[in-house]
């Protein structure tokens, strides 16, 4: 599959947006460890915004950044949300209430518990009635999202945006599913090359023959393995370095995604 990357959005620990993170990802500027900072976004009314969890805030920030970089209109673009675990904090509160509070569940927590909550808030915030899907594929959720988005732009639409995120579970679920950093990445993918295209990706699915690509910097490599969405880091590094390269991402059933990255 051949697709073009037209815009990137990024939120991660010490990675504050695509613009600021490119030299770090390219290895030009040293990586400095820091907490994930989610930039404020006022697309949702404040009453609505207060009810949302971290996945919604991350999705709005990175989706808007990627679409602004691609100079497109959010209302026109189909979206693909990809996350291993959705809003783990919200689920924790529901389980806690169910176990301890006589079976009462807060209605807001319940409607926020669906895996497609970020997609729902996104469509409200951007007034987009375009199709939107929400996927999960455990540690390979970013890879699955990249495949779904690429298949969409090759078969049905000219451009679509992938919004992949993962956030930590509180204890005790954290012990069973240790995601330790909040991370989000958005990619606007297009079928054809445009004047804003950053790179062409040629994506194939093959039985695993190579180890999946690590990130050179050891601290960023630690982020890569700490969050399913951060499995995107080797691809982001290849995009940021603006040189031709090849990235391998682990995928399901002993397969890997081979991605040839060709800067435009």
């Amino acid at each position, binding site marked *: 599959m051949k697709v073009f990357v037209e815009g990137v959005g990024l939120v991660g620990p010490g990675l504050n947006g695509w613009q600021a993170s490119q030299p770090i990802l390219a290895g030009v500027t040293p990586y400095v460890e820091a907490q994930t900072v989610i930039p404020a976004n006022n697309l949702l009314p404040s009453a609505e915004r207060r009810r949302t969890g971290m996945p919604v805030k991350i999705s709005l920030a990175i989706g808007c950044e990627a679409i602004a970089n691609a100079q497109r209109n959010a209302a026109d673009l189909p979206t693909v949300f990809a996350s291993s675990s959705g809003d783990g904090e919200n689920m924790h509160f529901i389980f806690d209430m169910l176990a301890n509070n006589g079976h009462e569940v807060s209605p807001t927590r319940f409607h926020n518990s669906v895996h*497609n909550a970020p997609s*729902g*808030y996104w*469509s*409200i915030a951007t007034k987009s*009635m375009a*199709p939107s899907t929400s996927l*999960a*594929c455990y540690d390979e959720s970013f890879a699955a999202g990249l495949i779904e988005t690429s298949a969409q732009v090759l078969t049905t639409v000219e451009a679509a945006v992938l919004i992949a995120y993962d956030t930590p579970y509180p204890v005790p679920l954290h012990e069973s599913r240790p995601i330790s950093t909040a991370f989000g990445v958005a990619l606007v993918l297009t079928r054809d090359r445009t004047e804003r295209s950053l790179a062409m990706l040629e994506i194939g699915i093959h039985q695993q023959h190579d180890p999946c690509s690590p990130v050179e910097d050891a601290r960023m490599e630690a982020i890569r393995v700490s969050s399913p969405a951060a499995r995107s880091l080797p691809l982001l590094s290849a995009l940021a370095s603006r040189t031709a390269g090849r990235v391998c991402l682990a995928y*399901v059933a002993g397969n890997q995604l081979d991605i040839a990255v060709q800067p435009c």
Partner: protein
Amino acid sequence: MQPLQFSAYTLVTPLGSGLDATLKTLRAGRSCLTKCDFLDVDLDTYIGRISGLEVKPVQTELASYDCRNNRLAQLGLEQDGFAGAVAAARERYGRERIGVFLGTSTSGILDTELAYRQRNPATGALPGSFNYAGSHSCYSVADYVQHALGLAGPSMVVSTACSSSAKVFGSAARMIQAGLCDAAVVGGVDSLCLTTLYGFNSLGLVSSRPCRPFDAERDGISIGEAAGFVLLERVQSPTAADTVLLLGVGESSDAYHMSSPHPEGAGARRAIEAALADAGLTAGDIDYVNLHGTGTRANDAAEDQAVFNTIGGATPCSSTKGATGHLLGAAGVSEAIISALCIRHGFIPGGLNTEHVDPALRVRYELKNQEQTVNRVLSNSLGFGGSNCSLIIGRESMGKA
């Protein structure tokens, strides 16, 4: 879209296990909703419960995936020779050329709900038997089914609440068209859990009676559980005369509210129009509409507007949720398969439990089973977050207009 054929399909709902049992119960016009007796749930409501899951574990070699949701998936795979049909396709195409795309809303979170009752009083830890990846994880059911069927192609779970297992048909069609696989196992599995029962109740959306879609007195949903699977592949030649095809998929977002539909059904309307366009059909080509028809006041009113404004007021419509309950993440595939049965066996199921169709609603809502030729069905799935998906299912010789 290029039509795809239903090469094999199977369904387990409260109506029964397998297509024969499903058809028999639909023909008999029997509702399978019963007074809620699930665990210690203290709600005055009816549920569509699959019996026997408590004593029927998953395949021994996949024991780490054992949970109610994957047990239900396993029960589904065992019906109608489905696993055998997939094995034959695997021989034909190769295991890496068959995708697995399944919908679920709550996966195996019942295990987590129960584990939270058994936290260590000193440390707060969950019991050692709790296994996240095999139960709670949103991807768990596709992971289980991929292993159980010996497949190694692309796979994922689509989790968009009540439209989940309709939207997987769209993903599969795109993946096949993009050349990523030659066939796909699509479907959905959703099982009873406390979060949905108490959650829908907290929103005031659970009826204390078996749900009555489109009734003037409708007052909410009844929650059920189900597993449904379809083996989709390109139309083979020659095809049997009664081969059922996926003709079109339409998807949209409401952009309105997290848990209430757009009051005029604008999102649903857009999905229906997109499905018709995808199939190259017009409203007049649709013989029957299997409504989402959940039985809440707002949902049915919004869907009525969407269907009336696209398909019109003359085409027979019904919701099968009075019989099955709302199957949530498994609703889309269950109703797609019920639609396939309508086409193959020439009948339209009347909506059960409904006594007086709401005079404010304008679609032609059928209360009794109708025996008639059905060539094309529109099936709607509308979910939380304003996620809408419409499917058009039809007969082989009646493909693209």
